[in-house]
């Protein structure tokens, strides 16, 4: 059972710490940072660093509590100017890992984060891109890429539903074609499955979780851009991306 009761306790503890840490960052640290001097770019960089540090601390905490082990491959290729980073989304903690290990990046996140007073300061301060409305998401991400930022997006739009075929929304493909200088996939495996969609926190897996994040080779956008009008190209690219993710992940996204 791999220290089941300890991990159950530690999972509850980790959620509590995440909530408390989020509260401290969101209600105190990030709002206070917004008062510090500096132009918009510096403020944004500061807020992103704070979020990154928070996520990084949380990853270390989960590892030290024995909840998970993780491995990263190829992360030195992330965070380039105008790079769109696309990742599959098997678990709630994927975004924690990407924000923890891709310095300075923007991220497409749920619009609900702007409505919650605690998460709002982070979303605003770090100038992340809201996923709704769709037009604003695509244009916001394109603008971020064109201005030289790297942007993280989960093209499934929501966590993968275990046992169902993977589906990609077209937004990421459209964003890539309009704005990205490089398009780079990250393949995330989380075994056994945990914190996937519709799964309560206390239903913990029987084994300690292993998270691996592999950065794949860049996907060449030129042939798609040359292939025809944007709406056709984005559909073709989206099909291609689905093939890339399925080929790499096969059926072991969820073991």
């Amino acid at each position: 059972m791999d220290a089941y009761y300890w991990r159950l306790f530690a999972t509850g503890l980790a959620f509590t710490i995440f909530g408390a840490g989020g509260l401290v960052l969101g209600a105190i640290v990030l709002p206070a940072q917004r008062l510090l001097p500096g132009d918009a770019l510096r403020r944004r960089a500061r807020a992103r660093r704070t979020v990154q540090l928070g996520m990084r601390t949380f990853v270390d905490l989960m590892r030290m509590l024995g909840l998970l082990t993780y491995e990263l491959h190829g992360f030195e290729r992330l965070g380039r100017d105008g790079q769109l980073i696309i990742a599959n989304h098997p678990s709630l903690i994927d975004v924690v890992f990407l924000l923890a290990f891709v310095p300075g990046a923007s991220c497409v996140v749920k619009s609900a984060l702007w409505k919650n007073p605690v998460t709002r300061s982070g979303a605003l301060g770090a100038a992340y891109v809201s996923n709704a409305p769709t037009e604003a998401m695509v244009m916001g991400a394109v603008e971020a890429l064109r201005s030289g930022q790297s942007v993280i997006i989960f093209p499934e739009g929501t966590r993968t539903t275990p046992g169902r075929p993977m589906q990609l929304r077209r937004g990421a493909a459209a964003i890539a074609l309009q704005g990205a200088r490089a398009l780079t996939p990250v393949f995330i495996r989380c075994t056994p499955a945990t914190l996937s969609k519709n799964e309560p926190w206390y239903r913990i897996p029987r084994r300690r979780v292993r998270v691996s994040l592999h950065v794949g080779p860049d996907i060449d956008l030129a042939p798609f851009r040359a292939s025809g009008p944007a709406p056709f190209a984005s559909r073709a690219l989206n099909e291609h991306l689905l093939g890339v993710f399925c080929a790499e992940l096969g059926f072991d996204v969820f073991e």
Partner: protein
Amino acid sequence: MTYSSEQILDLVKEALAELFRLDPARVTLEAHLADDLGIDSIDAVDLLYRVERLTGLKIGAEDFRGVRTVGDLVEAIARLPQAER
């Protein structure tokens, strides 16, 4: 130069024909972008970028709010500041 509504409609027709291979005859002011022309919100962004490219106007996502029909879109574009041309 500034664009009249007729010119903007022509530009939109041109963009729709190029991007979606839509017959310009189907592109009337009353045509509903999603229901009649099959343009979803991601297609709509490609359309806006194309119109930007054709006109040199800068269009933001907020300008597109509430746009449902071709007529709404023409109006939204006509409302944009055209000074920089």
